[in-house]
Each structure stands twice: as structure tokens, then as C-alpha cells.
């Protein structure tokens, strides 16, 4: 008990220095937590992907469509439960910076996503209205969309001003579900294209394929691609997870940079913390010598320094972790639909705690070695 008391009193001896070091620790642990949450958000689409869904797209690249007739052939592949068509719409809502994903989908699409929860009456309304759209809860909150509102998007891929009526708002079954999407009718898009640009009608951007048995994913993908081999639009089928990972891989350089920087902040705080501990140890040289002269073993002095360093690191870490949650909430809502999923994961908290403890231990290494080696006579003579 006396021992803990001694550590606590030592820590509070230089109140200003302790407060400054704590502040630095809090900022660093908080920054580290936010950065790894950003990285997590990057992978959110991958995490939310289901293994029972495949995505078939044109083998050349995503911007090339496939004929609408492919749906029929894909449905005949063994193990396929249902097939839905989807087109990336890419419209602009008022200003290009208001980005959110818009997909033109046909009716079976929602059947494949049990994680999207839509009120049944709203679903019926959506089916009946050609201009109807279903939007995610988060998207609706960001832009203040309500059921019955008219939303106009300016098409970039499909020219013109498009008018939609919000018929439903979907919620996510789990916190990981992306609730920032905007779903319009594929039929509406197609019929408009038939009138304005017949060449571009009856084209599907990608097919969402649901399997009755997820373990057949590899075979089913191969069979679907074999079906369209040597046709005008060869296909590439992969699991939803692989498809999402492909997207993340394209921006991998950014993810790597954020990761690197998040470890850099730990090094910065390590330098600050090590400095504090080094100063503490040097100032107390005479004290350590006195303790030793009284008969305390060098290990006692070492424990004292480690205890102080760890106490500081753990208190700073705890405050930093506690602050991560509210700050992440604010940050997440400020980013709006850019990061559909901004949640602090358990892994992030564990990493934060581990780094705080590591900083505490490493910062105490050199000072404790110095203190353990202090010669009693020289130490007593020292004036700090």
C-alpha cells in the first residue's frame, strides 16, 4: 500500500509536467483510435458481404454492361436461387460533393438482402411506383429525406434530370449494414433509356446472384463464366466479398498510408513520454541513492519507475479510449454518407490499450536502468 502511495505521490510531484504528458497521451491514443476506425470503415463493405451472394460483371471492366438476357441463363446454373439486375446510376444530388451510392435494381434484389429491413407497406408502395426509390436510414437522416419527398438527381452516366419519389426507408439488421444507399427501379431507368438512347437500353451493369448453397460458390462462378465464354460480353463472377475487396485494393495505398501514420503517432508520444521519464529519473538521482543507502534493492527503484510510467500511460490511455467513442460519433456524422459505417471496434480498443501499456513500459526502460545503476556515493552528491 505504501508502495502504491509512493508511486502516486511521485507522479503528482510535478503537476504541470504530469498534466502535459497525460494530455499528450490522450491526444495520441485518441488519434490512433480514430485512424484505425477510418481503416475499419474502409473495409466495412467487405465485412458486410455475404458468402451466399455472387456478383457477375463484364470481364473487361465494370463500366461495360451485359445484355439483359443473361439473367435467364444465370438462373439455370445449378445452385442459383435468384438473380437480380443492378446498374450503377451515378447521379448528382444538388452538388457533386453530396456523394452517395445509387443503384437501379429490379424487384428480386431486396429478397437477396435480408439485412435490409423495409416496412412491408412501404415496399408495396415502392413496387407500385415506377419513380419510387427506397433509401437507407442514414442517407435519409443526412439529407432530411422523408417518405413522399421528391428528389431530383442529375445523371452523369445517364443524361438528364431524373425525378424520384421516396417510397420507403430501409434499416440495417446489424450495425455493419450499409444504410446509406439509394435504390431506384431498374425498369424506370431502362424504359427511359429505350426512349432517349435505344442503344443503351436492355443493358445490365452487374448481376447479383444468390446461391441456395454457399459452398458451391466456386463451381457456380466457373459455370456462369463458362456459359458466356467467347460471347460479345464475357463475364467475371466472384463472391461479393472478393468484389468488395477488389475495390478496397484499388485504394490500398491510402489505407497503407493511414495505417503507417497511426503507428507514427504512437512513436511521437513515445518520444514525449520517454523524455518525461528520463527527466524524472535524473532529477531524483539523489533520492534513489538515499533509498539504496537505506537498504532498498535496485529492483525496488526500478519498480518505482515502471509503476509511475505505467500509471501515467494507463490513465492517459483510459481517457483517450473513453473519448474515442463520442469523437468517432461526431466525426462519423460529419462525414455523412462517405463512410456508411463508422464504429469503433473492439479490436481498435484493444490496440489502443496495448499501445498505451507498451508506451508506458518502453518509456521506463532507459530511466530505470539508469536508476538501478546509480552509485550511492555519486548519487548522494548529485544535485539533480
Amino acid at each position: 500500500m505504501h508502495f502504491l502511495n509512493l508511486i502516486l505521490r511521485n507522479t503528482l510531484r510535478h503537476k504541470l509536467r504530469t498534466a502535459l504528458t497525460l494530455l499528450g497521451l490522450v491526444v495520441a491514443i485518441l488519434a490512433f483510435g480514430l485512424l484505425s476506425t477510418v481503416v475499419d470503415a474502409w473495409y466495412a463493405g467487405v465485412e458486410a458481404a455475404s458468402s451466399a451472394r455472387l456478383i457477375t460483371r463484364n470481364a473487361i471492366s465494370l463500366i461495360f454492361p451485359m445484355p439483359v438476357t443473361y439473367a435467364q441463363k444465370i438462373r439455370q446454373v445449378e445452385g442459383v436461387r435468384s438473380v437480380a439486375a443492378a446498374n450503377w446510376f451515378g447521379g448528382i444530388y444538388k452538388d457533386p460533393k453530396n456523394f452517395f451510392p445509387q443503384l437501379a435494381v429490379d424487384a428480386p434484389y431486396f429478397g437477396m438482402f435480408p439485412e435490409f429491413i423495409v416496412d412491408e407497406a412501404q415496399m408495396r408502395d415502392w413496387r407500385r411506383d415506377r419513380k419510387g426509390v427506397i433509401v437507407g436510414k442514414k442517407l435519409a437522416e443526412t439529407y432530411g429525406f422523408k417518405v413522399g419527398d421528391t428528389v431530383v438527381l442529375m445523371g452523369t452516366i445517364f443524361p438528364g434530370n431524373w425525378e424520384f419519389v421516396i417510397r420507403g426507408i430501409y434499416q440495417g439488421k446489424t450495425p455493419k449494414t450499409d444504410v446509406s444507399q439509394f435504390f431506384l427501379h431498374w425498369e424506370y431507368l431502362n424504359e427511359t433509356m429505350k426512349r432517349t438512347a435505344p442503344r443503351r437500353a436492355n443493358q445490365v451493369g452487374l448481376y447479383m446472384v444468390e446461391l441456395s448453397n454457399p459452398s458451391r460458390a466456386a463451381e457456380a462462378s466457373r459455370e456462369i463464366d463458362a456459359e458466356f465464354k467467347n460471347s460479345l460480353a464475357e463475364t467475371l463472377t466472384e463472391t461479393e466479398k472478393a468484389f468488395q475487396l477488389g475495390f478496397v485494393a484499388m485504394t490500398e495505398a491510402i489505407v497503407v498510408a493511414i495505417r503507417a501514420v497511426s503507428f507514427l503517432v504512437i512513436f511521437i508520444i513515445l518520444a514525449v513520454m520517454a523524455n518525461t521519464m528520463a527527466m524524472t529519473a535524473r532529477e531524483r538521482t539523489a533520492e534513489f541513492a538515499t533509498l539504496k543507502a537505506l537498504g532498498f534493492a535496485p529492483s525496488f527503484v526500478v519498480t518505482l519507475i515502471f509503476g509511475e510510467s505505467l500509471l501515467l500511460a494507463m490513465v492517459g490511455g483510459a481517457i483517450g479510449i473513453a473519448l474515442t467513442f463520442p469523437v468517432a460519433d461526431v466525426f462519423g456524422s460529419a462525414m455523412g454518407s462517405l463512410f456508411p459505417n463508422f464504429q469503433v471496434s473492439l479490436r481498435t480498443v484493444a490496440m489502443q490499450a496495448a499501445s498505451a501499456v507498451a508506451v508506458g513500459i518502453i518509456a521506463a526502460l532507459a530511466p530505470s536502468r539508469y536508476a538501478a545503476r546509480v552509485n550511492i556515493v555519486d548519487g548522494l552528491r548529485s544535485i539533480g
Partner: protein
Amino acid sequence: MQVPLTYSLRNLRTRKLTTALTAGGMALVVFVFAAVLMLDEGLRKTLIETGSPDNVVIIRKGSESEVQSGLEREKAAIVESQPQVAMGTGGVRMASKESIVLITLLRRDSIKPANVVIRGVSLMGPALRPQVKIIAGRMFRPGTSEVIAGRAISDRFEGAGLGETVRFGGREWTVVGVFDASKSGFDSELWGDVEQFMPAFRRPVYSSMVFKLANSDQFEAFKQAIEDDPRLKLEAKRETQYYADQSEVLSKFIRYLGLTLSVIFSVGAVIGAMITMYAAVASRTAEIGTLRALGFRRASVLAAFLLEALFLSLIGGVVGLALASFMQLVTVSTMNWQSWSELAFSFTLTPPIVIKSLLFALAMGLAGGFLPALRAARLGIVDALRAA
């Protein structure tokens, strides 16, 4: 009377470990700060140098990028016949009708696919971009399945090296040349004959058109004429503007993320400097008293301690910049969200970045050193002398 400069410098030398740790923390912050500015500068340079101010890009109204745009042959003919389009030797219009598509290629170093821009150009296409120079092999011959690859693509993607073949659009294409576009965005593209690409991709329309203005001042008149013509529904942008718009989101993202991080990190470094300087003041109380007793004024003591903090941060700044300068060897390739295609750019160090980073370091030193220096200056002579 001023306290000699060497006093501040030598004090840093006496406490080697503390100085190294504090300067080290600052160096890391300056490194992040400089690296972000360098990255943004590299991106800007890549995309701005891609365009030439005398060239005009025509895309479909509202389509935002060449990849999403479509331009019918008859509309292209109308645009080409405008008087503002420059006339080259032999009475040929200096315009290139182009077809831009994305294809998926595999990287050499991993099996990860990435989107690569394929640009079909007319005969005039290369002439409109004087920065594009063939560095190996030769130019593709029109009317054949030959393509040339940008340096960044040729190095990093399978099948894009000289003499290799890439398969897309149901055909095999031989890479007969590698070109260097002096670090512009074209380095990340594959070029071939537009009249070969269009049937291969089964596209009856061009994506966009690029032409050179006969006179740079005529842009506004041309833009007016094209955008007011109800038949066309087209948009005209100077090529420089077009590429700047293309990278706006990515550039903003890098800048905001980087600057936010720098600010947060600098809090840590400032605190480090403050701790060090407070300790320096505390352990030298008697010394400060002596200085004051010798007749040095409060302002001189303040200046001496501030200088010490500034020297400390300058060391950090120089070390951080030195570390950051090594980043120039690194090329970053990532997907540009707006064009959905792979873009390679490198960290670029410019004199303004050096100055900004050093100023940033000094500002951290000033912020961290001011309060401790003030405390030193305020010490009473008698109390300070007694402290020893």
C-alpha cells in the same frame, strides 16, 4: 544586452537524451506534415501537367469525365468544323476524337486487379500532347492491333511491357512502344488507334474530343457557341481545368486528412517541447538568477529560452525534412475516385514545401517554448539565486 547565442546552443548539447527525444518527436510531426504537402503537390503536378492550356476537351454535358461521356460522330464533326479549331500542316484540323474505356489488368507484383485507362486516339492525338515521348520501341501503326503503354503502366501491369500482349475487347493487342509523358496522368494509360478500339468495344460513339485552339483567347467564344447550341448538349473545358477537376476530390481528401493529422500530432510535439523547456527552466533557476544579477534584462532571458526552443524545433524540422526527402523515391498508385482509374504519382518536394515545413516546426517550438520562457523571465533575482 543580449545573452550570447552559444548559451542557448550549448544548453541543448548538455542534455543530449532529452534534446534528441524532443527533437525526434518534432521530426516525426514535420515528416508527416511535409509528406502530405509533397503528396498533394505530386498529385497536382501529375494532373496539371497532363493538360495543356491551349487544348480543349469536349464531353457530353453533365458527364463529368471522359469515361462516362459519349460523343456522336455527327456532333464531333460539327465541333471539328468550328473556326476556333487550329489548322495544322497540310490543312488538317488539330483535333483528336477519342474513345476512353477502363479495363481491368493485373498488377505484376500481386494478383490484385486495377482499372487502367485505355485511350483510343486519332492521328492527331499524340501531336496534341507534346509531353508524350516514345522512350522504347515505336509509335503504333494506325489500322493495326498495336498499342503503346505509358511508363507507369508498362512497369507495373502484366502484359503491358514492350513486346508483350494484352487481351481486351476480344482481341490481342501487341505493345510496340513505351512512352514517357513526363510524370503526367498519361503515364498511367494505354494508347491505340481509336478506329480499332471502337469496333473492339462495340461502341458506335466516341467518348470525347480534344483539340488545339487556333488562338488561346478564343476559348470563351468557343465555349459559348458550343454550349448554347441545342443540338449538341456538350460541354467544353480547357484541358488543364478538366484534369484539375478530375483530381479535386482526391486532392481535397489528402489535404484535409493530412492537415488534420498534422495539427493533432503537433499537439503532442508541442507538449513535448513544453515539458523539456519547463524542465530546463526549473533546473537552471539559479543560473537564471545569476544572469539577471549580472545585468541581463528579463527580455534577454526570455529571448534566450525562446531561442533554445526554436533551435530545438529547427533540429526537429531539418531531421523531419531530411526523412521526408527520401519519400521522393516512392511512387504512389491509387484509384482516383472521380475517374475510377489507376493513377500513379510521386511525392514531390518543392522549395515552398521546405519553407512551410520549417515554419511549421518553428511555430511548434514557439508554442512550446513561450510559456516556459515567460516563467524564466519572471523569476525574481533573489528567489532564483536562493534556489541553489
